[in-house]
């Protein structure tokens, strides 16, 4: 295992990133810790906490997932995908908004859901599941507003300046939505073992997480047609995250959380995305090797 941890750190360094990872076998509880308790900014990974809170309220009967939401074109949270990128008024159900929030990280859909669910409920859900170091302090729109404010009048272009990046409040875990790799794998384990919600709602969460479209991070480490990957990414300038579950046809299920910061401020860094998959693969291979040895 220490060899796997060393290989993970070497892979991250080779990709020009600093990173923290926690992985565990959902059924045996065997784990791999490469900085599992590091406080990290969650960015869009926190949409997973919101999704679980939404289903918890639905399970209690506090809301109906088929409830229709008016998505007016005014005051939508900005984003490059989903409702956030659309121009006209739309109307859709809470669960379809949840699908867009998870499949393409739709910021507008996330904030519409957050308005219905409430930030306090998201924190109550994570607290109930024992995620003591996980906390949402603002909406996704508010988080992006701090980036815009800290970037100043130059806008997105200023985010190439390391000095501007060093000042972003959205990259300081004390001042934005936060968690740890271990808290996130704990959440994933609860979802996959149906401890977070009823089995019916657990299945709905797992379905949506399996529909995420991005192939470039966690999934890239598992180029096997018979291996299922479900996850949620999170990104901000220099920050690249993904948490998810990798399922093998022999029944092996592994929760993995990877949080990284790139040295470079460039927005397009394919190697930094891919190393999330590489690191997760090293971790999962190590957990599977350990299970194989102990079964003999």
């Amino acid at each position, binding site marked *: 295992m220490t060899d796997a941890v060393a290989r993970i750190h070497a892979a991250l360094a080779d990709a020009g990133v600093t990173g923290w990872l926690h992985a565990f076998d959902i059924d045996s509880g065997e784990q791999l810790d490469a900085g599992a308790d590091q406080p990290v900014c969650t960015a869009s990974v926190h949409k997973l906490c919101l999704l679980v809170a939404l289903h918890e309220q639905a399970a209690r009967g506090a809301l109906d997932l088929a409830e229709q939401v008016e998505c007016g074109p005014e005051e939508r949270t900005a984003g490059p995908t989903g409702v956030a990128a659309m121009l006209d008024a739309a109307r859709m159900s809470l669960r379809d908004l949840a699908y867009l929030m998870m499949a393409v990280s739709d910021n507008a859909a996330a904030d519409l859901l957050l308005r219905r669910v409430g930030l306090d409920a998201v924190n109550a859900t994570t607290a109930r599941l024992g995620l003591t170091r996980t906390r949402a302090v603002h909406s996704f729109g508010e988080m992006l507003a701090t980036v815009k404010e800290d970037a100043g009048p130059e806008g997105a272009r200023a985010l190439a300046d390391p000095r501007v990046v060093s000042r972003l409040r959205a990259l300081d875990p004390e*001042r934005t939505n936060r968690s740890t790799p271990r808290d996130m794998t704990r959440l994933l384990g609860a979802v996959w073992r149906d401890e977070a919600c009823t089995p019916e709602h657990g299945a709905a969460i797992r379905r949506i997480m399996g529909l995420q479209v991005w192939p470039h991070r966690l999934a890239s480490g598992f180029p096997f047609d018979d291996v299922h990957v479900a996850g949620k990414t999170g990104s901000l300038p220099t920050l690249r995250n993904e948490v998810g579950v990798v399922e093998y046809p022999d029944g092996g299920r592994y929760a993995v959380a990877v949080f990284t910061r790139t040295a470079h401020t460039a927005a397009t860094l394919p190697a930094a995305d891919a190393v999330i998959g590489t690191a997760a693969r090293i971790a999962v291979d190590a957990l599977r090797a350990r299970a194989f040895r102990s079964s003999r």
Partner: protein
Amino acid sequence: MDLVRHLECFVAVAEESHFGRAAARLGMAQPPLSQRVQRLERELGVRLFERTSRQVRITEAGTLLLAEAREVLSRTESFLAAARRVRDGETGLLRAALPPDLSGETVAALLADFGDRHAGLELELHELSTAQQLDRLAAHDLDVGVVHHPCDVTGLELGPVLRRELGVLLPAATAAGLDEVPLPALSGRDLILFPRTAAPALYDELLTTCARGGFTPAAVRHGQGASFVQGLVLSSGAVALCPRDAAPSGQGNGEADVVWRPLTGGAPALRHSAAWPKGRGDAAVQAFAEAATHALRTAAGAVPDVPARPLHLRPASEYWL
């Protein structure tokens, strides 16, 4: 009234837009936080927030005062850092570091300037790579350094980012008649670069920038020492990147075997800035940072790094401004 403590409350509520969350961040209960904000509003005679039953919103007057409040808090931090230095008996000593690739002239200019700004302070100067500096800054074994970008700036404050444009080292015969070299003209040549493990992100940035400008090396050879690099340039027809101030001496007298030429067409650059741990930028650290910035600009020909190229965020970036 403890103004600093009250301003902390003001800034926290402004940033969180929520009394409960601001209280959690400050590690205090909500009622005393509300009282402090009200007291501050009374003392100033300015209404800072609009409160409704569901939310709290900063007023226009509050917005006008927010930047000043942050400034006061950051000055306070700097003052406390200085006090810590005095208390810890470090008052006479500043532990600083420079990267190995600065020219002797640049280092001399920096030291002279720092001496003028801060006579009487002893400077303990180390020659350290960026990776070594980041480790020591994080461990608080170093007060201030000058780092190469790209590097992970988590937990650091930075001085202005400066760039030293890179030119190319060529055999004199190849360079004859050329005042400058367009990047695509280097096509097909080998490039000599430091070993990638020394700074993977910088290594990749240099190769990406060269490729973006039209120069994809036939092969990359690894070398670092000046003599070794010049030997490779002379013997193999490979080229090397080098800032003007670090170019081999003998330039311009027509006798050098290896000569330096500026690159055109999107030349790569080395980028530096002074760096120190967040919240520990006291007067001595600032003086060193300013001296380093000044020396890089005057002795090494560095210029402010203004992001000039467009930035097209792609949908997978997940954020949008």
